[in-house]
């Protein structure tokens, strides 16, 4: 057969080559932003690069960074999960309250919390696949449901650190690596990134997650069991959310039903800044870690520079819009 390609001459310009590169490796732009931000903040303030400060940044990032893994999986399927923060608080309260008030052994309390997280994910997945409702609507509803359940279960009471066993706050313990204190929570987060990166890149399930997000109908016709993939994504997300709950308890040395609702949107922020497309099917998990770190570095660096907290929020907003604009620009070339 004759050559099909000769009819299509290569019409690349330097700009289109940059676009192709970003398209192929979506983690490049967040990586560049992170490196530049670290350099700039390091030059502006000596304390920024001090081991104690770097350690603080990693601990501040651990919760949203882990939660954003769950968010990335959902967004890769062209969905969105507005309930991750609420589900995390629910799981955290199940862990803390069952261990403190109900006298459940700590390890069992963790298992109960894990079950709560998975059940929350299962509910989202069931509604998305069985009732065929848009993930935005489903998780907007479950956001309220999980929040209300949490308050009903706890009566709005916080479980303080003094009431928590060392097993529940274990994720807040630190160990020293090269002079930097790393918390167990940060290590768990990194381990989860490695695991999910492997699963997405090297397994059939990972490919199917991308295929479903890319073009659902094409995936179905290719023999991918779309609903099974979608349901499993929400289940895995639920498990990751529950693990995040454990990290949150260690990080704050408490479990409060009223803190952490910002995480619903902060996790989306990290994913978007990390270069994952809200339209699904494009992005890498490492970009999300970079995105979470970028937010952490900007907040910390701007605070060290003495700027009001509102400027941190403002900067994060600008970053989100720039990230999505870049994504649109990259996508436009392909449509």
């Amino acid at each position: 057969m004759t050559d099909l390609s000769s009819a299509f001459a290569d019409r690349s310009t330097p700009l289109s080559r940059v676009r192709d590169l970003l398209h192929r490796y979506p983690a490049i732009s967040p990586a560049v932003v992170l490196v530049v931000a670290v350099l700039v903040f390091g030059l502006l303030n000596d304390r920024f690069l001090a081991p104690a400060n770097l350690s603080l940044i990693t601990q501040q990032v651990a919760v949203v960074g882990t939660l954003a893994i769950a968010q990335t999986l959902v967004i890769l399927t062209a969905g969105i999960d507005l309930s991750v923060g609420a589900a995390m608080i629910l799981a955290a309260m199940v862990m803390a309250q069952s261990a403190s008030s109900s006298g459940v052994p700590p390890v069992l309390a963790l298992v109960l919390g894990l079950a709560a997280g998975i059940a929350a994910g299962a509910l989202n997945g069931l509604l998305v696949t069985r009732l065929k409702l848009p993930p935005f609507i489903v998780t907007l509803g479950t956001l309220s449901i999980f929040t209300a359940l949490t308050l009903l279960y706890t009566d709005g009471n916080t479980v303080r650190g003094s009431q928590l066993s060392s097993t529940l706050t274990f994720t807040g313990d630190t160990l020293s690596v090269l002079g930097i204190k790393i918390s167990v929570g940060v290590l768990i987060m990194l381990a989860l990134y490695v695991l999910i990166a492997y699963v997405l890149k090297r397994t059939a399930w990972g490919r199917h997650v991308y295929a479903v997000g890319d073009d659902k109908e094409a995936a179905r016709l290719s023999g991918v069991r779309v609903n099974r993939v979608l349901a499993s994504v929400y289940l895995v997300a639920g498990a990751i959310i529950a693990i995040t709950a454990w990290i949150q308890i260690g990080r704050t040395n408490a479990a409060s039903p009223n803190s952490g609702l910002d995480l619903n949107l902060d996790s989306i922020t990290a994913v978007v800044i990390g270069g994952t497309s809200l339209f699904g099917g494009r992005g890498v998990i490492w970009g999300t870690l970079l995105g979470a770190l970028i937010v952490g570095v900007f907040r910390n660096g701007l605070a060290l520079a003495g700027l009001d907290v509102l400027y941190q929020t403002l900067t994060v907003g600008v970053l989100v819009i720039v990230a999505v604009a870049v994504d649109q620009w990259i996508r436009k070339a392909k449509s």
Partner: protein
Amino acid sequence: MTPVLEAKNLVKTYGRVVGLDGVGLQLLPGEILAVIGDNGAGKSTLIKCLTGAEIPTSGELFVNGEPVSFKRPQDARAAGLETVYQTLAVSPALDVAANLFLGREVRRKGVLGSVFRSLDVKGMRERARAELTELGISTLQDVTVPVENLSGGQRQAVAVARAAAFGSKVVVLDEPTAALGVRESNQVLQLIRTLRDRGVAVILISHNMPQVFEVADRIHIQRLGKCAGTITPQSHSMTDAVAIMTGAQTL
């Protein structure tokens, strides 16, 4: 000769709308059977029912004389029936090799594959290259390119290659040249002939009469959810075919 694929009295209704009204079809080994018909004549519904994308309301299907029933596209695939949909059904972000193996990925041997579920990426790429070469698609040697970076003709080639690879018995093509230019269309028609020469039976759905009359061995004409008759390019002219299609003439 036993038909490689046979449908008897296929009926498909959507509520009160009748998509197929008792259609029969025979596909013989190594032939190109074209399916033509006006819009709404039931071409797409027929194809979907043959390939597991839709479940017929009633009727029988046979592959090599054996009764079969397909619940989903994988079932048809498992029986050796592959389909190239009009929408191509490729995943743009995945590369050529990943698309060829989508839904039938190969895992690595040993513990890495069975416990860690690791894919044999290298092996799949090699097999993808070999299949493309065998089909004479020389332009797609880089199987690591995302499909969205390919031209329309190249995407079509990927979709056809996916259908033709892995020893399939029947390949169904739904309007494979509708979105292509003259030159690319000819290349796809050539690819269809290559398939037939390899002993693969082909069903070709098309609006393009000259193309149908150029490559088809037999022509099945759909009209108003029924088969209005089966002709050959030798027995009838294009004008006859259009007349039968529109009901101006009956067989």
